[in-house]
C-alpha cells in the first residue's frame, strides 16, 4: 500500500461513492471531506453507502466556498487524518468527487513506487502563469480579499481598486516565495507531513488565509520549502477555459481520454455513464507504463477558447456579430474587385476565369440583379440573385458570398452604374483588392448608338458616381489594396495592370502574361471625348486621352494562348 486518496466532495455523491469504492477496492485508503453545506440526511446516506469499507474514512467537515481558505482547510483536515490513520501511505493524491482515474490503479501505484521521493505538484512562480483570473497575479499575495468574488463581485473589484490606489501591500512572511499551480497534487508523505507539522504553520496559515484562491498556492508554495524533488506537473489532467472554470468531459471524450494516458482526469460530468463505466471497469490500459500525454486534449480545449475569444474571421451569425466600430468586421478571405476591365476587353470574364481556381462574376451589384459566374439565379449558400434581396443588405450579401465560397478566390466586376451601397464596406475591408480603370465606363457608352444628349447626361451621372467612389478609396479609412489608373494610361500599357490582377487572383501559379486579350476598338474615342467636352461635359476621370489615338486594326480571333510557359 503506497497511495492514499484525499477526496473533497460536495455534489453528485453517488459518483463519489463509486469512486471511493474503486480506490478502496484497489487497496488505496480514502479520506473523504464532505462539504458542510451538504444536508444531514444526504450526508448520512453517503456515509452509509461506504460503511462496509474499513479503509474509507470521513473527516471533520468545513463549509467550502470557491476561492477561499476553506478548501485548503478541508484538505488539511483530511490529509492529517490520512497520515495519522494510514501509516503505510507513501503518496497522497488530492482529488475531487469528479476526478476519474483513467488508468488502472495498479499502474499509478507502480508509477509512484518507482518515484518514491518525487512530489507531483504544479508549482511555478507568479511571473510564469498566464491563467490569472480577474487580472490578479502577484496581487493575490499582496492584497486582502475579504469579499467573495462569486457573490459580491462589485465589492471584490472595488476593494481591489481601493487597495491599489492607496498603495496597500501585505507583507509576505519570511521564507515564502509565492508559487502557483493546479490545486490537484500528489505529494509524498514526507513533504505533506512537513507542511502540516511545520513549526511555522500557524504563521503560514494565517497568511494564506487571506490570499486569494489559496488552494492554488498554499501547497504549491510550501512544498518548495520541504520537498526533496518536485516534478512541477499535476498527475490530474484538468483544463480551464478562459473564464477559469474547468472544462468538463463527457461520454464522447472517451477515446480522447483513453489515448491521453493520464492517470486521473477532471472534471467528469456526473451523468457521463459511459466514462464512469469504462474507466472504473478494471480493463487494462492500452499502453501500460506510458507517460501521460494530454497533447490532443490540450489542442481541443485551446481551440475552444480560441473560438470563444477570436471566432472565425469573416463570419457573421447569430452568436458572432462583431461591432462595426471595433474594427474586426471583415470578410473571410481576400477577393478582387475590378472596375472598368470588362468594358475594355471582349470576353474578359471567361478569359480571366481560365486562369485556374478563380470565380469571375459579372456585375454582382447590377441594378437588375446579381450576375453570378455561370449566370444562375442562386449561388453558393443559396444566395439569391434578386436585386431586392441583395439591396436589402448589400454588406451582408457580399459578406455571405465571401464566406460561402471559402477556399476559392472570388472576383467581381463593379462600376458606377451599379448599386453603390457597399463602397464603404469594401474600402474598409483589408481583404478587398480593388483595381480601377477610371473613366472606362465611357467606352460602352461610346460604342452604343444612342442620342448624344442622352449619352452626355448618362456620362455626367456616371462620372459623378465614380468620383464619389474614388474619394472613398482615397480617404484615410480605406484599408483595401487599391490600384487606380486612368483610361488613358491603361490603353498605353494594358499588360502591367492585368498582370497585377492575375497575380492576386492566381497567387500560386503566377502566370506570365505576354499579350492582353482582345481590346475593344477604340478608334474615334478621342473625338468622342472631345465632343463631350465641347458640350460642356469634361470627362476628366479618363485622363488625357490622345485625340489622335489610332489602335492597331482589330486582329482576327487568335488561337494561340496568351500564356508563355517557362
Amino acid at each position: 500500500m503506497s497511495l492514499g486518496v484525499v477526496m473533497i466532495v460536495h455534489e453528485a455523491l453517488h459518483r463519489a461513492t463509486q469512486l471511493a469504492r474503486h480506490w478502496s477496492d484497489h487497496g488505496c485508503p480514502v479520506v473523504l471531506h464532505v462539504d458542510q453545506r451538504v444536508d444531514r440526511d444526504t450526508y448520512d446516506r453517503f456515509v452509509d453507502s461506504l460503511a462496509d469499507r474499513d479503509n474509507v474514512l470521513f473527516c471533520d467537515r468545513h463549509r467550502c466556498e470557491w476561492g477561499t481558505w476553506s478548501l485548503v482547510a478541508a484538505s488539511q483536515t483530511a490529509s492529517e487524518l490520512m497520515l495519522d490513520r494510514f501509516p503505510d501511505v507513501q503518496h497522497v493524491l488530492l482529488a475531487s468527487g469528479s476526478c476519474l482515474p483513467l488508468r488502472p490503479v495498479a499502474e499509478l501505484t507502480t508509477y509512484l513506487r518507482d518515484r518514491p521521493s518525487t512530489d507531483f505538484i504544479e508549482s511555478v512562480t507568479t511571473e510564469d502563469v498566464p491563467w490569472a483570473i480577474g487580472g490578479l497575479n502577484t496581487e493575490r499575495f499582496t492584497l486582502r480579499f475579504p469579499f467573495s468574488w462569486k457573490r459580491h463581485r462589485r465589492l471584490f473589484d472595488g476593494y481591489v481598486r481601493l487597495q491599489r490606489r492607496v498603495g496597500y501591500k501585505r507583507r509576505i512572511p519570511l521564507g515564502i516565495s509565492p508559487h502557483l499551480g493546479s490545486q490537484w497534487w500528489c505529494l509524498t508523505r514526507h513533504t505533506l507531513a512537513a507542511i502540516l507539522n511545520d513549526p511555522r504553520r500557524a504563521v503560514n496559515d494565517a497568511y494564506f488565509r487571506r490570499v486569494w484562491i489559496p488552494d492554488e498556492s498554499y501547497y504549491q508554495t510550501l512544498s518548495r520549502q520541504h520537498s526533496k524533488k518536485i516534478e512541477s506537473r499535476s498527475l490530474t489532467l484538468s483544463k480551464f477555459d478562459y473564464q477559469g472554470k474547468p472544462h468538463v468531459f463527457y461520454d464522447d471524450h472517451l477515446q480522447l481520454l483513453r489515448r491521453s494516458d493520464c492517470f486521473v482526469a477532471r472534471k467528469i460530468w456526473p451523468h457521463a455513464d459511459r466514462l464512469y463505466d469504462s474507466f472504473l471497469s478494471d480493463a487494462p490500459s492500452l499502453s501500460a507504463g506510458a507517460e501521460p500525454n494530454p497533447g490532443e486534449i490540450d489542442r481541443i480545449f485551446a481551440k475552444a477558447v480560441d473560438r470563444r475569444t477570436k471566432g472565425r474571421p469573416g463570419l457573421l451569425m447569430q452568436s458572432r456579430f462583431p461591432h462595426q466600430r471595433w474594427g474586426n468586421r471583415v470578410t473571410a478571405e481576400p477577393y478582387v474587385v475590378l472596375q472598368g476591365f470588362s468594358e475594355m476587353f471582349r470576353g474578359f470574364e471567361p478569359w480571366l476565369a481560365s486562369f485556374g481556381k478563380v470565380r469571375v462574376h459579372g456585375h454582382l451589384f447590377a441594378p437588375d440583379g446579381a450576375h453570378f459566374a455561370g449566370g444562375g439565379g442562386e449561388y453558393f449558400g443559396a444566395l439569391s440573385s434578386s436585386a431586392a434581396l441583395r439591396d436589402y443588405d448589400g454588406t451582408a450579401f457580399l459578406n455571405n458570398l465571401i464566406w460561402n465560397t471559402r477556399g476559392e478566390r472570388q472576383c467581381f466586376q463593379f462600376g458606377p452604374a451599379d448599386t453603390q451601397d457597399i463602397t464603404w464596406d469594401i474600402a474598409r475591408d483589408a481583404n478587398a483588392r480593388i483595381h480601377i480603370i477610371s473613366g472606362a465606363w465611357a467606352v460602352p457608352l461610346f460604342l452604343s448608338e444612342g442620342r448624344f444628349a442622352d449619352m452626355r447626361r448618362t456620362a455626367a451621372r456616371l462620372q459623378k458616381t465614380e468620383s464619389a467612389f474614388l474619394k472613398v478609396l482615397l480617404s484615410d479609412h480605406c484599408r483595401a489594396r487599391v490600384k487606380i489608373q486612368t483610361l488613358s494610361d491603361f490603353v498605353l500599357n494594358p499588360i502591367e495592370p492585368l498582370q497585377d490582377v492575375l497575380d492576386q487572383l492566381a497567387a500560386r501559379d503566377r502566370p506570365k502574361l505576354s499579350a492582353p486579350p482582345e481590346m475593344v476598338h477604340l478608334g474615334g474615342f478621342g473625338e468622342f471625348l472631345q465632343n463631350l467636352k465641347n458640350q460642356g461635359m469634361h470627362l476628366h476621370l479618363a485622363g488625357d486621352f490622345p485625340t489622335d489615338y489610332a489602335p492597331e486594326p482589330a486582329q482576327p480571333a487568335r488561337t494561340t494562348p496568351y500564356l508563355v510557359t517557362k
Partner: protein
Amino acid sequence: MGALTSYRLRLKRKRHLIRAFRKRHELSAVKNRTTQIAPADILVFTTLRNELVRLPYFLKYYRDLGVNHFLIVDNGSDDGSREYLAQQDDVSLWATGASYKRAKFGVDWLNWLQRKYGHDHWCLTVDTDEFFVYPFCDTRPLRALTDWLDASEIRSFGAMLMDMYPEGQIGAEPYQAGQNPLEITRWFDSGNYTIRKNSQFRNLWIQGGVRARVFFDDNPERAPALNKIPLVRWRRSYAYVSSTHTLLPRGLNLVYDESGGEKASGCLLHTKFLDTFEAKSKEELQRRQHYANSHEYRAYNTRMADDPVLWCEWSEEYINWRQLEVLGLMSKGNWA
C-alpha cells in the same frame, strides 16, 4: 443605456407580466400534472392547434433529448390533438378557445405558465414543427448543455430558426405520424441570412433563408424573423415579448458576442413545409390570427398557387449539427 430607457423597458416587462396574469383565465386545465415536476427538471412549453399528426414524433424527439415535462396550450384543436396529449404521462395540458392573436400569438399564455411553473427551471419554448439542435446533441443530452450553461453562468441560449424544405414540391411526399419530418424536409439554405441589431432590445434581427428567397424576394423587409432564444433558465420576472424572438430583461437577448468571439448557439430546424402546409396556411389565412395581418400567410398563398419548388441547386442537405457548425450557422463556442 439611459435610466429612462431602462425604466421604460421595465414598465414594458411589467405590462407583459400583467397581460399574462389577466389572460390566465382563458386557460382551462385539461390535465394538470405539474406536481410531477421535480426541482431540476427541464421543461418544454408549446402552443398548438390541430397538430395531431406531428405530435408523436415531436414528443419522442424531446423526450429523447431528456426533457422531463411538457406544458402545452391547445388553442381549439378539433383533430384529436387534445385527447392524444391528455393521455401522455409527462404532458400538462391547458385548453383555450380564445384568440391567439389577442394573446400576442400565444406569448401571454406561455408567459403565464412559465411564470407559474417555470421558475428556476430550464425552459425550452418551441412549436411542434421546430426541432432543437445544439452542439454535441447527438452524443450529449440536453442536461449536459444546461449544466454547462449553469456552470458558465449563462441564462439564455440562442437558436436560429432554420427553414427546412423538401427536394420536390411541397407535399409531394406525404408525412406519416411518428415519422421524422427531416426525412422529407432535408434541405436548407446555408448562406443567405441578413442580420441587424435591434438597438432597443439589443437582440439580433435575422432574416433570410428559403422563405425570404422564395416568398419575399420582392419585399425582403417583411420576411419573417429567424432569431430565437428558446432556451432560458427561467425566473418569475422574465417575459417573452414577441414570440421567442425577444426577451425582457434585455440582458437575456445578448446571446451573441460583439468583440469577435463566438458564443455557443444552436438551431431550430423548422419543418413547416410538409404536406400539411398548404391546408394549414389556407386555414390560418381565414382565421387571420397571425402576425401583422397574417401577411406571411398571404405571401404563401399567392405563391403556392404556382406550386413552387423551394429547392435550388445550391440547397444544402442536412446531415448533422457539425455540418451546421462548419457552415457557420451555429457554434460550439467554448464548449468542447
